[in-house]
């Protein structure tokens, strides 16, 4: 089971870029790295997923170094509405039977 480690919390200000790093030292060859966002009293929401190098979508970027033992979620120009908990997940199981276990997550607090 690939365990993930993230900072418990981070503070930022509106308009800044935020980078949240997750370590997953025993990631398996077939594992993908997935990030979810969760607002209070809501279910988690998929943000981005990647396997290696860099992935970018309309919400965030994901940077994964060659050894894949860590990954960094980058949120450009955050706003107050980005205040949430961000979870880094690495799958566990075979290619066709993959389950995700949530780590502790990073609570991002965006200040005005």
């Amino acid at each position: 089971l690939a365990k993930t480690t993230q900072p418990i919390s981070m503070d930022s200000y509106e308009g800044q870029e935020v980078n949240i790093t997750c370590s997953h030292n025993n990631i398996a060859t077939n594992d993908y790295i997935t990030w979810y966002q969760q607002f209070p009293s809501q279910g988690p929401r998929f943000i981005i997923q990647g396997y290696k190098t860099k992935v970018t979508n309309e919400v965030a970027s994901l940077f994964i170094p060659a050894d894949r033992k860590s990954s960094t979620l980058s949120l450009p120009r955050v706003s107050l509405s980005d205040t949430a908990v961000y979870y880094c997940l690495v799958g566990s199981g075979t290619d066709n039977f993959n389950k995700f276990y949530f780590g502790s997550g990073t609570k991002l607090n965006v200040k005005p």
Partner: protein
Amino acid sequence: DAMVIQNPRYQVTQFGKPVTLSCSQTLNHNVMYWYQQKSSQAPKLLFHYYDKDFNNEADTPDNFQSRRPNTSFCFLDIRSPGLGDAAMYLCATSRDMGATDTQYFGPGTRLTVL
């Protein structure tokens, strides 16, 4: 537009009184999951259904059961709720269980046990 629907959003039950939470999906996904999330903690996987096949997590108490009568619906039954079962219960679905299959979560049901 709701894809994963959970009812009710808030449920109050008494200690020891059975309670059922429901989840429905419009995505026609094969897999449905139930998670328990206690205050300030990460979601914890309780079990999942792949189609009709039930898969229980090793540390899920026997007090928690689930039913999936058809593709669209899945129920979480708590046979004898204790005070420690007060939590948010999240239902999620995924098309399949491959490494890239995204999970779609419902809004959750917050359970209070009196």
